[in-house]
């Protein structure tokens, strides 16, 4: 097993609200191993994006309150670093790409200058060296006529091309970890396929570990090696992708997988649905957060919250009555 390049221990994000605090992310522990893709999957409000922003220390505090036992990245605890030290890491060793490249690219700067920036800032290249490297990067991410493209502004590019530019910026300094938050959600399916292929190729080439945050289980199935399923601010199940999809242990994971409409020869009469909806943070039940929607819940589930426990095959599940168990 490859060693962990990033390990978060009991990561939490809370917000002050009138009359108290609400925990949006609560005691999340996971590790990302060298060169692997870990999928962090969950529905709206599950806390997956907050988890990623907390890792990057990009949450504004206040209102957010970050707590963790440790976030160890390449042997250093990020919690102990100053803002200046974090800025040296971000974009160099630890990079991030977002869902909508239009809002994360600077509309007033040419694409070339935006890729030059980290190269000059982190690698100390001269302007000319940086530009030569930027053009090579643009070519590598599949942008035709790179020297021409470097002169363009983000609005002159299509959504798919903008996401390629974001990837070029993020990988310019060969980071050891890339956090990708819904990188293909805003893209059409044929463009999504291109971008996922590109990320996979670049990962093989550079050995970058990817934390892939998405709501789309199909994207996870295709790209991730391991997966962590989040529900209401906690990880409810982790494991290698093949095993987790074949025999989900948590009833929530099972429900999610079954509710995806698939292209099948015979049409199913009804899709299995998960009744009810995700509880709002601050209104979590006393026991398991999924218990009110769970078909298998009994008194124990409503009384006490299960913690993440090891299961067979390097898996973990937080459930009193795991499926396939």
């Amino acid at each position, binding site marked *: 097993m490859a060693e962990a390049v990033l390990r978060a221990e009991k990561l939490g994000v809370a917000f002050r609200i009138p009359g108290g605090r609400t925990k949006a992310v609560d005691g999340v522990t996971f590790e990302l191993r060298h060169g692997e893709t870990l999928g962090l999957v969950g*529905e*709206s409000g599950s806390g997956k994006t907050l988890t990623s922003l907390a890792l990057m220390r990009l949450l504004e505090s206040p209102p957010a309150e970050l707590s963790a036992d440790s976030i160890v990245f390449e042997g250093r605890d990020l919690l102990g670093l100053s803002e200046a030290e974090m800025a040296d890491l971000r974009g160099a060793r630890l990079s991030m790409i977002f869902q909508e490249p239009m809002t994360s690219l600077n509309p007033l700067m040419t694409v070339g200058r935006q890729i030059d920036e980290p190269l000059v800032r982190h690698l100390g290249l001269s302007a000319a060296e940086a530009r030569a490297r930027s053009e090579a990067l643009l070519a590598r991410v599949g942008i035709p006529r790179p020297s021409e493209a470097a002169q363009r502004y983000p609005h002159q590019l*299509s*959504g*798919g*091309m903008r996401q390629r530019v974001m990837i070029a910026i993020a990988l310019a300094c060969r980071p050891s970890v890339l956090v990708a938050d819904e990188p293909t959600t805003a893209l*059409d*399916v*044929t*463009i*999504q*396929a*291109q971008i*996922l*292929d590109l990320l996979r190729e670049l990962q093989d080439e550079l050995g970058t570990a990817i934390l892939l945050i998405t*709501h*789309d*289980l*199909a*994207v996870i*199935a*295709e790209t991730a090696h391991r997966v962590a399923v989040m529900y209401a601010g906690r990880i409810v199940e982790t494991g290698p*992708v*093949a095993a987790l*999809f*074949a025999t989900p242990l948590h009833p929530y994971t099972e*429900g*999610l*997988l079954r*509710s*995806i*409409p*698939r*292209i*099948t*020869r015979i*049409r*199913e009469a*009804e*899709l*299995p*649905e*998960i*009744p009810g*909806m*995700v509880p709002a943070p601050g209104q979590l039940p006393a026991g398991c957060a999924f218990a009110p929607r769970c078909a298998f819940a009994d008194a124990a589930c409503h009384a006490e919250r299960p913690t993440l426990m090891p299961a067979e095959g390097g898996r973990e599940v937080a459930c009193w009555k795991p499926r396939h168990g």
Partner: protein
Amino acid sequence: MAEPLLEVAGLKTHFPVLSKLLRRRVGTVKAVDGVDFAVAPGEVLGIVGESGSGKTTVGKSILRLIQPTEGSISFEGRDITNLPAAEMMPLRARMQIVFQDPMSSLNPRMTIGRILAAPFEIHGVAKGQELQDRVAGLLGLVGLPEDAAQRYPHEFSGGQRQRVGIARALALRPSLIIGDEPVSALDVSIQAQILNLLKRLQGELGLTYILISHNLGVVSHICDRVAVMYLGRVVESGPREALFFNPKHPYTEALLAAVPMPEPGMRRARVPLGGDVPSPANPPPGCAFHPRCPRAMARCAIEAPVPTQLGDGHVVACHLHGG
């Protein structure tokens, strides 16, 4: 096929591109550029395509929310292409639309009760106690509690708001409902609830749907027939099984191959489809797909293929198949 409920022939919807300064016409976006199809009563037709394919414009043109440039639309046996607004009004009760984002299609300052009462008031169908009863009936139909009538849209989750959007569309017992990405903004567990609701209502009320979506899984689950659009035209259409399991157009093949599957290790061999969808303001000559097509021939750049019947209602517009 029985007498179609809706028939669209040679539909074109073009938008002018105006110059910045003098607002002179400098070009045309051919959002919909020659679309033909028919929908039988009780049928569910899926329209799929990527951004810019014109699928939303087709839906809005059918409802005359956008005036089409050319072609004809017949609904319940009547040509409605050029009906004046006053004559369209009673027909609007028969054809309704459900939008993607219910938050932006529900008035945030009106209670759900008033939102659902509006169709009855506008069409002068019911008032007083009968109106209240009808609203309560609609809430029950879509699985919302009766006290929802006193609450405002922001008090509901996305899935519940979409139930309100569906209830409003159903208010006047339409025969045709156009759903424009009705489940795209919803989480997968909620999406399943809404899809099941749409399917159940279709059976119970004998509705006809046109479902516009980019999600092929959703379309496969609910549709009887499917039309695939690319740059303003239908490139292939047919029964769902033929289209999903025996696609003929290289674009349909590529689209299906690009869909990620929720089964690890089941990755299909991808049809290499490079590049982006060209701008509908400046579509390529000949077959609009030819610059991205892995099987393009010399002829494809020059001559636009015409739709060819393959039998069983399977139609393809491609030179590889006699077009």
